[in-house]
């Protein structure tokens, strides 16, 4: 039932199918080797591999470890670049590298980041210090990036405008926290329950409201999110939810970000990778092509016989589950939740990040999330002076955000990745562009 729908977003596979497993294998090797070496180099007396790794990893600076990661990164970059020049299309290693090389490189960089930073700032990865602090910035970026990816799935790929994404985010946070606080559930069941509840909510929203026209659906999601917010804030349920102040709950030691931040770091990174790969695999599959078709012209997709409703539901439900996963992480990170997680901030942020990075692209949301988070951190103390008027950027970050919003929408609607891609295309195909321009009317 494959209709001939062109799919300019994804790269076509030439030659043998891409092998994500190869990528996973490659990464596993790249990561395990340094860890083993770290374990071997540890001076700890305690028995057991885990303890040895721990000791080796936490060693001040972990210089050799970082250097090893850096060397691996350079090798990988070189191999990927070389793969572009390896003419033969049939060589599976070259194909895999061309497809996933840059991805693996970025991932490796993120894995190695704590160590590299520790090396640079001569602090430890496990104890309070520069590297430790930066981990928390990165963790927040990971969570936001996951949220942005989930939003991009619903808005950028399925073409469904939703103003209620924060509801899923907050639902995940509140559910996991409340279950662990009041019902004293252990971690894993609570997390699963939170994801399940989001899944059901997404289904409910889709079944109930998707049949109404897009604009009204957007308003519906806005209302829906607002209801959650009001419920979380109200004083009647204050005993349960803590009303405006929210609540806190205890988190198992191994995931306690104050002490075992590195573990949390990798957990958040793992979740981000899962989100990314899930969405990417989905959009490269036949189902993804259908979603693409629905976004471009729903009526045509309908007339081709696709059940657009089912596909959109799938996108919304999956997006909701991923968003609530991000919310769960956020609650675990802060060891608590407050109505803020249900506020419009967490609908605006992923929307803006997706816009900046590029709507409907794979890397866009991640780039947008990282960029935004890093810039916000970097500029938090900077001050702009306009004549006698001083503006502290950190305090007025929202103002910058709103201005960015407007700028992007007017000037760069395709975001960073989109604008780059258009520029790249226009350079490679000038003739076609001229022909198209000639055919365009005013």
């Amino acid at each position, binding site marked *: 039932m494959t209709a001939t729908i062109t799919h300019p977003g994804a790269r076509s596979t030439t030659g043998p199918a891409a092998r994500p497993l190869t990528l996973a294998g490659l990464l596993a090797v790249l990561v395990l080797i340094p860890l083993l070496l770290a374990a071997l180099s540890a001076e700890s007396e305690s028995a057991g591999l885990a303890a040895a790794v721990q000791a080796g990893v936490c060693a001040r600076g972990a210089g050799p470890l970082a250097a090893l990661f850096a060397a691996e990164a350079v090798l990988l970059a070189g191999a990927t670049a070389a793969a572009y020049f390896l003419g033969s299309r049939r060589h599976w290693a070259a194909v895999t590298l061309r497809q996933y090389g840059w991805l693996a490189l970025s991932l490796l960089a993120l894995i190695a980041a704590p160590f590299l930073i520790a090396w640079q700032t001569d602090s430890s990865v496990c104890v309070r210090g520069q590297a430790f602090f930066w981990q928390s910035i990165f963790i927040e970026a990971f969570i936001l990036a996951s949220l942005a990816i989930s939003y991009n799935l619903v808005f950028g790929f399925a073409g469904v405008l939703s103003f209620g994404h924060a509801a899923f985010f907050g639902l995940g946070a509140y559910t996991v926290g409340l279950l662990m606080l009041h019902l004293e559930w252990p971690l894993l069941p609570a997390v699963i329950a939170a994801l399940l509840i989001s899944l059901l909510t997404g289904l409910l929203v889709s079944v109930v409201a998707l049949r109404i026209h897009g604009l009204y659906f957007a308003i519906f999601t806005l209302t829906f999110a607002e209801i959650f917010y009001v419920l979380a804030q109200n004083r009647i349920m204050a005993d349960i939810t803590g009303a405006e102040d929210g609540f806190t709950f205890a988190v198992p030691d191994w995931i306690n970000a104050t002490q075992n931040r590195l573990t949390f770091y990798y957990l958040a990174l793992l979740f981000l990778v899962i989100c990314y790969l899930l969405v990417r695999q989905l959009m490269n599959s036949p189902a993804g092509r259908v979603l693409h078709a629905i976004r471009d012209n729903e009526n045509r997709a309908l007339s081709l016989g696709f059940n657009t409703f089912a596909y959109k539901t799938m996108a919304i439900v999956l997006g909701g589950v991923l968003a609530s996963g991000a919310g769960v992480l956020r609650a675990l990170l802060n060891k608590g939740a407050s109505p803020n997680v249900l506020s419009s901030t967490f609908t605006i942020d992923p929307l803006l990040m997706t816009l900046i990075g590029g709507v409907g692209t794979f890397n866009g949301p991640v780039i947008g999330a990282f960029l935004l988070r890093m810039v916000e951190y970097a500029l938090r103390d900077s001050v702009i002076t306009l004549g006698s008027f001083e503006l502290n950027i950190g305090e007025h970050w929202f103002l910058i955000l709103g201005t960015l919003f407007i700028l992007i929408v007017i000037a760069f609607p395709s975001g960073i990745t989109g604008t780059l891609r258009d520029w790249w295309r226009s350079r490679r195909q000038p003739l076609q562009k001229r022909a*198209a321009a*000639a*055919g*365009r*009317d*005013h």
Partner: protein
Amino acid sequence: MSTILELQDLHTFIGQYHILQGVDLAVGEGSVMVLLGRNGAGKTTTLRSILGLWQPARGRVVFRGQVLNGCPPHEIARRGIGYVPEYRAIFRQLTVEENLKIAEWRKGQLAARKKMIFELFPDLEKLYYWPGGQLSGGQQQMLAIARALVAENSLLLIDEPSEGLAPVLIEQVMEAIRQLRGHTTVLLVEQNFRVASRLGDFYTLIEDGRTVHSGRMADLAADQALVQRYLGAA
């Protein structure tokens, strides 16, 4: 007879589709010119290109000696071109009076022309305060044409006025258009060759976005082979 409207090698794209690929047209003042052609040949696109609703990519639209290319639609309309689109496009939620009033450019235009309009379309006088949506198809068509007469338009572009109308109503509409001859020039798109041949003085035949034939209607009506070739069954 002077030429009031001239199209020179008009090309129009809709998106990437090259709809008009060189339309040439000359309409003499005071005459009724019929634009003929099969479905999808580009007749409606031609009208809309004249009006500026779809800007031509190449070629010229010359009205009364002035080039219209690049002008926004409302300016083109102000120069004296009225439009009666295919789907009648009267404002259903407005009354007949309001439908006519909105076409005025200066106060008093409607008052001056009311008598003429009621003479051409007596039904409209009866239904003056009725909402447009409650009129029958034929009455709506009359209203659409009447509306184009309110302002002092010297050229009327009429797109398929007989579409969807019962034969007796078609007669009425035809009669009305015939009577327009004294007041204004008409460029008419009409699929129904029977109607077209009885209304038009001249014709221009379009196929695949290009002018392939033009001349006096009387000559075309006599040439069965030509009619068969370009229009299929009449």
